[in-house]
């Protein structure tokens, strides 16, 4: 089987033909054998020939799955995205066309398009089920509401069943396309104490700078340019003006990617880790633009630390790590996926090419959260402050923030709100989260409560008036 991608009118050119497939037996015709035997048994006991014939018809259905052999499905995917670079909030229409490239018809193919993790579908549905003759095409069209950032489509998941439905072949077809939406750069509220290098962060300390801070009594050694000559002329006192010192901030953007954080308000909404990774990228951009020194950290199933540094190269490194490091994996952990599968056996929302954690430390090898945090804290410097992005879905999250704070690291928490008011459980979760928010605020940790429908910048400026 191959997977091809043709760049549609506005899509980016294809990047590779990654695919993975798994075969599942549904066993949906197994019960019919029992029915056949029952009919035959009753027919024998009651000496009723027509019931034997019923048993024979039911028996034919036990052979039915063997009549319909599944061929190896050969599908290709083409995707058209319009417009290619939408504005924030604009509707993006997506047309994904799946073609049966094989020689055999596929009786039942169920297709779930890999909607970018950060976007929600606003009209239509990215799912469809159809049957495809050789060379036949099926088109799914739907609309997404654009959010700032770069959005990469995930592989298309196709579930191909034979006519009897007894064998289900799940394949994911990589069709790399992406679009970009101009991001309004958020104004990141940083906390005052920071490094000693001059830089763009306006602090509350007096000293050199542009913005007036206070008037102090003249001390020997103060530069003459800062002496307030008018006051000297008026009163004869020598005073010198101080300005708010501008410092370079060292900031580590830290993403909470614990399995507990893979929560979403709704199955069609992006989960909190996807939101957090997106916010981390935009906060990073804003900080790099302001010439701060920025680092990246993530904890959860894996730990990832990128030390603070400035410069364009480092910004590239920051984004690469954010996009590729397994610590920020957008696939929900297995238990959550199992829960998603229950009931109707819904396919997982996303299937990445590299599959499960390939190298040494997987499920059993994961380090405890405390050890991961210790490692993050060991790698970041003393004057570094942390922007912790966490949905605050459990008490552990606010404990982590307070641990940073009590360890002397200034923390700002940015919390995407993924709670919902639709269900009783959701309302309870919302209440608990608001308690955690106020608990953190009482502990002196500034918290940005970010409702993902709103721009991140607005939520940031709501608390960030005093800085920059």
């Amino acid at each position, binding site marked *: 089987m191959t997977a091809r991608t043709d760049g549609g009118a506005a899509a980016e050119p294809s990047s590779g033909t990654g695919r993975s497939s798994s075969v599942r*037996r*549904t066993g*949906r015709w197994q*019960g019919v*054998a029992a*029915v*056949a*035997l*029952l*009919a*035959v048994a*009753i*027919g*024998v006991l*009651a*000496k*009723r*020939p*027509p*019931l*034997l*014939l*019923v048993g*024979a*018809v*039911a*028996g*034919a*259905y*036990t*052979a039915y*799955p063997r*009549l*319909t052999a599944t061929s190896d499905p050969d599908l290709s995917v083409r995707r058209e995205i319009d417009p290619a670079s939408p504005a924030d909030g604009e509707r993006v229409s997506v047309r994904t066309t799946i073609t049966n490239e094989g020689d055999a018809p596929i*009786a*039942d193919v*169920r297709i*779930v398009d890999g909607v970018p993790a950060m976007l929600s*579908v*606003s009209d*239509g*549905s990215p*799912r*469809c*089920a*159809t*049957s495809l003759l050789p060379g036949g095409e099926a088109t799914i069209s739907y609309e997404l*509401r654009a959010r700032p950032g770069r959005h990469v489509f995930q592989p298309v998941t196709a579930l191909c069943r034979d006519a*009897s*439905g007894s064998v289900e072949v799940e394949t994911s077809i990589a069709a790399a396309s992406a679009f970009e939406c101009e991001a309004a750069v958020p104004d990141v509220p940083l906390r005052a104490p920071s490094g000693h290098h001059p830089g763009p962060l306006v602090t509350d300390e007096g000293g050199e700078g542009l913005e007036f801070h206070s008037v102090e009594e003249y001390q020997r050694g103060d530069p003459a340019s800062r002496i307030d000559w008018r006051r000297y002329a008026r009163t004869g006192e020598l005073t010198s003006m101080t300005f708010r010192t501008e410092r370079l901030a060292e900031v580590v953007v830290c993403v909470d990617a614990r399995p507990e954080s893979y929560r979403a308000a*709704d*199955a*069609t909404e992006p989960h909190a880790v996807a939101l957090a990774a997106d916010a981390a990228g935009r906060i990073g951009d804003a900080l790099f633009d302001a010439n701060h020194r920025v680092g990246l950290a993530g904890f959860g199933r894996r730990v990832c630390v990128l030390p603070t540094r400035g410069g364009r190269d480092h910004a590239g490194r920051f984004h690469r790590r954010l996009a590729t490091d397994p610590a920020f994996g957008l696939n929900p952990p297995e238990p959550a996926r199992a829960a998603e599968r*229950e*009931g*109707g*056996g819904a396919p997982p929302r996303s299937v990445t090419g590299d599959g499960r954690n390939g190298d040494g430390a997987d499920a059993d090898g994961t380090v405890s959260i405390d050890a991961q945090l210790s490692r993050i804290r060991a790698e970041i410097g003393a004057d570094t402050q942390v922007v912790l992005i966490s949905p605050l879905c459990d008490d552990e999250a606010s404990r982590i923030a307070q641990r940073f704070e009590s360890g002397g690291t200034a923390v700002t928490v940015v919390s995407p709100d993924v709670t919902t*008011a*639709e269900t009783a459980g959701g309302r309870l979760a919302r209440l608990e989260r608001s308690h955690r928010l106020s608990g953190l605020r009482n502990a002196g940790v500034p918290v940005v409560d970010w409702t993902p*429908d709103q721009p991140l910048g607005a939520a940031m400026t709501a608390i960030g008036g005093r800085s920059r």
Partner: protein
Amino acid sequence: MTAPDATGPAATSDGVTAPFLRRPAVASSVVALIAGGAAAALVADGTLQREILRVAVVGVLAFGIGTRLVRRDGTALRALGALVALGGGLVVLAALGRAATQPPQVTQRLELLPGIAGLWTLSAALAPVRFRWSRALIDVGTGFVFLGVLVTGVTQGADAIALLLAALATILARDAAENAVSVGGQIGVQRGASTARSELVHAGAAASVGVGAIAVVLGVARLGVEGLPFGALVALVAGGVILVFGSDR
């Protein structure tokens, strides 16, 4: 002034996002109910039985459609759906009562009762009353319908062809209903998710297999197997079933 107005259904955040609706798919559900109804009608061939069954089918459909409406958005639709479902349920109960008392012979009652109960359960599974219960309810419902077929086979209340067709219709109902749940769970029934084509292809393939099987079975029966000793016929069919069973799928 607007604050106390929050008693209605929870405000959808912006009203544009179509959520993923996990319900049994419509086309297969309709096919399943038609097949189930046909199975019940084929074995209940008395005039009175047919009349009671017609009433029951109307009630079952009203129950299914009403329950489906209850799960929609909008208070008015929900209230209407609840009323329709309640009315349908009452009609079915009345039909069950009639089926249990009116037909003169006990065997006729036994042929009819499982069919009506099974159809009702099937419509409850496909409405659905609760999606998680759907598969179990489908098994129970089609099991009841099949029970009616078996009872008819024992009481010799219908000729062989009607019996075979009823068994076939029961199997098709089970297959289509299961497929409705499977498609509904994976693709959903939200606007824009088209599934009808694959569902109809699936049901059509299953039906053609059944028709072929019946043709073969009747052909064999016409060959004069009646002349064979009953034991030989038993051995033949049992051997065939074991052969099929012995295969690994």
